[in-house]
């Protein structure tokens, strides 16, 4: 008798996508947004072409979403700003999640380095964020890379702490000992047993990170430490538009909605993905679905 060990009917992701209409809709929409942001710019008016005489025009056929205080086309800026914002947020998320995960995993699992690493994290976190961001912005000049570094530096200790606390509880489980008995090296145990059990939390963290990245980008622009003009990001579009809340509300509403939509979609995808990665949550999800349908009283 032969039992398939790893082969399964379909990958869990594909299954989840098929099963969860919300997830597939959210994913499709996000993919659409990303595609639009990547493909569209060449077909739109230059996002940086200024025309101050035609500033603050309301939405019209010429300018789908109106113009901003420099007379630039808001739709073009929305699209190319999306490119920067989404790209930046993705990069920051990847970097911060990666460094945070590595630090959290290592310091939670190898107790020898834990005390030192965590004290450094503490000092790092207790350093006021504004100063950190400013010091970097001044030291390196306001550019996309500065912001990437600044936000990665800012977010890393938070992710690291959250991950570490979960690693600590996972590392205390018997199955970690069982893996050692099975002859697994610690580094591999970390990857095979600890990491997957930390992953659902990490996914939540990723969602939080990508949302925060977009929001903090806005906040940095708001404080004048964001990406150098004229490169648009949704964050600095809001910051620039805020003076015209009454005159030209679309300037702040449009990028605000864009941020919200993307973060919301990411959130939806993240929490559904989490069910995919975590079989226990998946089982619970099934249960809740069935209960909601009244299959089980």
């Amino acid at each position, binding site marked *: 008798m032969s039992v398939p060990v790893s082969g399964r009917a379909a990958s869990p992701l594909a299954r989840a996508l098929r099963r969860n209409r919300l997830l597939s809709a959210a994913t499709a929409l996000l993919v659409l947004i990303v595609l639009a942001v990547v493909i569209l710019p060449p077909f739109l008016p230059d996002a940086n*072409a200024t025309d*101050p005489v035609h500033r603050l025009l309301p939405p019209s056929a010429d300018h789908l979403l109106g113009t901003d205080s420099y007379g630039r086309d808001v739709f073009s800026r929305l699209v190319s700003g999306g490119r920067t914002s989404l790209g930046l947020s993705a990069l920051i998320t990847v970097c911060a999640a990666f460094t945070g995960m590595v630090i959290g995993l290592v310091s939670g699992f190898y107790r020898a380095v834990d005390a030192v690493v965590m004290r450094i994290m503490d000092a790092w976190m207790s350093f006021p964020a504004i100063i950190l961001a400013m010091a970097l912005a001044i030291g390196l000049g*306001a550019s996309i890379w500065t912001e990437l570094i600044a936000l990665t530096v800012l977010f890393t200790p938070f992710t690291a702490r959250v991950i570490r606390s979960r690693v600590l509880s996972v590392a205390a489980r018997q199955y970690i000992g069982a893996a050692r008995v099975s002859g697994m090296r610690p580094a591999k145990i970390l990857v095979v047993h600890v990491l997957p059990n930390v992953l659902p939390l990490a996914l939540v963290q990723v969602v939080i990170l990508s949302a925060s990245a977009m929001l903090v980008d806005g906040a940095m622009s708001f404080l004048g430490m964001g990406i*150098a*003009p004229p490169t648009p990001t949704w964050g600095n579009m809001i910051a620039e538009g805020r*003076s015209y809340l009454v*005159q030209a509300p679309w300037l702040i509403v449009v990028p605000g909605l864009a941020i919200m939509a993307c973060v919301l979609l990411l959130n939806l995808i993240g929490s559904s993905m989490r069910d995919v990665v975590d079989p226990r949550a998946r089982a619970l999800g099934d249960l809740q679905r069935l209960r909601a349908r009244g299959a089980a009283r």
Partner: protein
Amino acid sequence: APSANTAADAGPPVRGGNLIVAVPTDPQSLDMVANPGQVTAHIGNLLYEKLFEVDKEFAARPMLVETYETSSDRLTYTFELRKGVTFHDGSPLTAEDVVASLQRWLKSHVTGQQVAPDVVTLKAKGDDTVLLKLKEPRYPLIDELASPGAEIYAAKNLEGVPATGFTDKGAIGTGPYKLASWDIGRQVVLERYGNYKSRADQDWGGQAGAKQAYLDTITYKVVADQDALVNGLQTGQWQHAMPGNDQYTALKENASIVVGNVAGANQNVIIPNHAKGSKFADVRARQALNLLMDKPAMNAATGGGPDLTAAVGAMVSEDNPALYSTVGDEVYKQHDPAKAKELFAQAGVKAGDTVRIVTSNSYPQFAQWAVLLQDQLAQIDIKTKIDTYDFPTMLGTINKDPGGWDLTTLFFNAALTSPSQMPAVTLGAFNGSASPEIAALVREYNAVTSPVQAKEVMDKLQALVWEQLPVITLSQSRLYAAWSPELKGYDGFYRVFWNSWLKR
């Protein structure tokens, strides 16, 4: 919105009440010598007085001086002080106080420092007479004594004051209001000075003439955020504010708020770096830049429209007719990108070169101009790198590497009383624009004897500026204020609130 108050609907003055005024920053210091900030100056106007004060047209009028005499060689000035004037602490104003205050002004204030080389002696003669001897005649001396920084403080309060200025304890002047409390970062409260001795003359407007303190107290609330500034005005949290240009249109449309121009203006400038290493060390490059810049477009972006923007190349506000000169405006109005490109090439600035703009985020328009410049330079294939810093960082960066930047953006107060206060003159060290020709004209101005001559020299100076381009003027921004209809008697001169009252 109804425009500025007219005497007719104001009714009779009402005594009492507390006026709340929103200011964008804490004054940080109430010492007008150590801190040349706008908020300090405006609060200081109510606290302190000078020997002379400017009227509505920025002409000097006697304030603490009763009479003064000038010797025939125009080298000796004798000032007779008004009698019975007291400081807020009750001590009488004496010639000693004037000497001590002006000595400090000559030593530490930008304008004073321009005057100082010409001063031979400054001394008290008795209690009420001050003697000032000059090396050379100086036509604008009285105007300079009426400019911010020349306030008179009690001599005893100036002893041992550090370079950073005195604290709230030293904030004692002879003005109609005195300091009641100062909650740093939050608010400054002034209250009526009961023993204020007003001049008997009629109100000359501006800062001069008779002053009646109708309001019991004036509270300056620190409100840094532009939206909060406007919202608070609308919700009645304060009765007076000077919001940014971008808020103008919205406020103007608001029927429950009075919007009006305020005396004086700001001169908006692009500052090219003349130092070695800069792309604009060559005058042709500066001229090219002037040709390239689409000034109407850049002014449009500054917001407020024609109400707030005067498209003139003058360095001094129109409100000050004695110094206002539009000579050189034909250069100011030139706009020819093709020729600019040529000129740039001649000056060695080629397509593909990168112009380094440093700017600060202390005012939104700085970055706006930089971005627009960038776009215009891009049209003739010149690249730009914009570095936006906070103000001290920008100054520090420029200071550290004088050749490491090409352009920066700023604005200056254009309500001036003498050429020595003009940025084209005072910026000499900052961007290396000092030139013997300019210095010679300033000397020539000092030597004149009549307003007509003065105007002539001023025209020459203005023309020279458009030739050498130490700064390139974009426009003048008119200041404006927005206030509650309850505030009466306010004539739109800065934040001067004597002779104003609240009508309930």
